């Protein structure tokens, strides 16, 4: 069906054979790992910086202003200037803090978001590791970052930080359930946890269209719950600027703060990418039933473009949330999860299981 989509596996495969011809198999694996690591590092930095820029521009236009426009063309170099500044900023050691944990926390947060990127399929055949439990892995790894946040809040010996960290802990632990259950809905549909299989199962239509109303409901729940899980507005209680100054990272300066800052945006990317993969077909082009001509045209658009297009669409929606809504209170946040999202998604799962059993889905 999607035969004329460029398969990156041929490219990676040819690199592999080329390397194999030059060195022993152990070195090949080592070289490939280094290469993949470098590529991810580069991509991480570029996407992160671009997301910060995008956020600033998007909110600016929503608020009738121009946004950064004086550094480089349209202010495109703005975040690079920020990065250079943050790199050279003084790192202040906090008296009476726990130095080991204090310094460790930002790395935990950023490593967690880094790990999750490995399992995402960016294009056809372009995926570092294709786990058979891909969905599970991404969720598990990305929810680990709460450990970093808790450590950051606790070790910096500041009361505001501690409150922020505690809020974040309660928030992520409870919203993890809804994210899991809403993803489970699609796992039930496609019958696999492997991300590549989930994408292949959407070749004739994305799950959000194929899965009737239940899939749509779980998509909405996924959006809301994942916005909460990555601590973004209106669920940004952990940093709640007007309440807790800067929340769990109040005492961090310089590049350590930049790690938190970057990790927040990368988490947004990961969540949006996961949502795009599971609900919107990942790199799979938009196909309509038997319209061969239309489907052919859609196939000409490279799969990378499809993936990033869908991801950035979801990111825009998450940003739209943030710049519209007021922040929730901590008890309302938990009420929303335990009284609304969780029961609905549980019921939804039962409904989907029933649909799948009866074979009503396409």
């Amino acid at each position: 069906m999607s035969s004329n989509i460029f398969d990156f596996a041929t490219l990676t495969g040819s690199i592999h054979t080329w390397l194999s011809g030059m060195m022993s198999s152990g070195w090949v694996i080592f070289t490939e790992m280094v290469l993949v690591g470098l590529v991810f590092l580069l991509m991480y930095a570029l996407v992160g910086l671009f997301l910060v820029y995008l956020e600033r521009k998007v909110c600016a236009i929503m608020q009738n202003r121009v946004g950064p426009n004086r550094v480089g063309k349209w202010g495109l170099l703005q975040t690079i200037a920020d990065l250079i500044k943050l790199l050279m900023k003084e790192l202040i050691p906090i008296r009476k803090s726990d130095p080991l944990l204090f310094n460790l926390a930002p790395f935990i947060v950023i490593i967690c978001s880094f790990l999750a990127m490995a399992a995402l399929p960016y294009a056809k055949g372009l995926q570092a590791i294709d786990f058979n439990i891909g969905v599970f892995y991404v969720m598990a790894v990305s929810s680990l970052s709460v450990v970093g946040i808790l450590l950051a809040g606790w070790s910096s010996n500041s009361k505001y930080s501690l409150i922020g960290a505690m809020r974040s802990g309660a928030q992520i632990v409870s919203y993890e359930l809804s994210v899991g259950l809403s993803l489970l809905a699609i796992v039930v549909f496609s019958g696999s946890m492997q991300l590549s299989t989930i994408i292949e199962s959407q070749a004739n239509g994305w799950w959000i269209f194929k899965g009737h109303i239940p899939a749509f409901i779980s998509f909405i729940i996924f959006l809301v719950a994942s916005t909460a899980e990555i601590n973004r507005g209106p669920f940004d209680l952990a940093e709640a600027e007007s309440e807790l100054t800067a929340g769990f990272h109040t005492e961090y300066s310089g590049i350590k703060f930049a790690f938190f800052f970057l990790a927040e945006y990368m988490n947004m990317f990961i969540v949006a990418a996961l949502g795009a993969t599971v609900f919107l077909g990942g790199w799979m082009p938009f196909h309509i039933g038997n319209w061969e001509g239309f489907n052919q045209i859609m196939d000409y658009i490279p799969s990378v473009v499809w993936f990033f297009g869908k991801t950035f669409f979801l990111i825009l929606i998450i940003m739209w949330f943030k710049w519209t809504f007021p922040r929730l209170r901590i008890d309302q946040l938990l009420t929303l999860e335990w009284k609304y999202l969780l029961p609905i998604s549980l019921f939804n799962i039962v409904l989907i299981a029933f649909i799948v059993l009866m074979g009503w889905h396409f």
Partner: protein
Amino acid sequence: MSEEIIKDVIVGEQEDYIINMGPQHPSTHGVLRLEVCLKGETVKYLIPHVGYIHRGIEKMCEANTYQQIIHLTDRMDYLSAHMNNEAVCMVVENAMQVKVPERVKYIRTILNELNRLASHQLWWCAFGMDLGALTSFFYGLRDREMILDIFEESFGSRLLHSFNTPGGLMHDVHPNFQNRIKEFIKYFRKKLPEYDQLLTGNVIFQNRAIGIGLMSKETAIGYGVTGPSGRGSGFSCDVRKIAPYGAYDKVQFNEILATEGDVFARYKVRMAEMWESMNILEQLVDNIPEGDFTAKMKPIIKLPAGEYFQRVETARGELAVYVVSDGNKSPYRMKFRTPNFSNLFVMNEISAGCKIADLIAISGSLDLVIPDIDR
């Protein structure tokens, strides 16, 4: 201090989780310091500490002439600068028994209402920002700039104009004044419903505001909470109605009252006051009588010995000026009863048992201007 007391204090600190909000904290809009005692996230009690911006304005007044005092009152409650000016001007005018031209009264009233609108817009921005709705900040300030343009055209400055003088105005308003006000009202009548859609109707906002920070009418009267904050509890305290000054006796307007006494009631009162201010402006703007912009005053003003009192309604409540004069060119004692001082100290009463986030909402709904508290 004996050792036991020290021990008590230390033990007490360990049990109570005390955080300091301020002096530098984004939610206090100034240098207010709130010592908040928490249990988990719930507020047990709070102690406001004032004085971080005490500038001794009352003491300074004793060394300045009445014309010079005007520019100090600007800086008390900088968001209702005109009302502050007018209070002092009216004290002087009443004491000297100067008859102020009608034109001056009309213009002053228009300026009051414009200033009230600007102030409420800024409050709306800041309140939205406190609750995390960052976009409201930009929409409110965007519309406020239109008022500031009107101010700048007539008085040459945006925020603090020192435009009133005892006996009248510094100079006449700009010829464009009326047209620009009409333009602004036309524009703002379209924009104000957007505020409602963005924030008022929002379910998150309503959950954050309804039933939070309940202040009964008795509490409001007991603490002397005036202005929109007091009227949100059903305390009818609008000086414009009770003791009309300026041109307020010539216009039809309603005193906005709400009885719920929570954050949302105070919010509603302010939103309704914006509509009401526009109504007042529309009634006045076309009817400014011709005439002088100032009454004849001697260059050196000396109040006859005695005590004088005047109150006005600022954007935040009742401002009262009390002057004791010994017949010199500067007052013997000048006392300002500023609305924010009373409005601040009710916070402990109404915020007990709420969450930190509610505390921010409550302090936002009281619309505090810190330099007005400390003077």
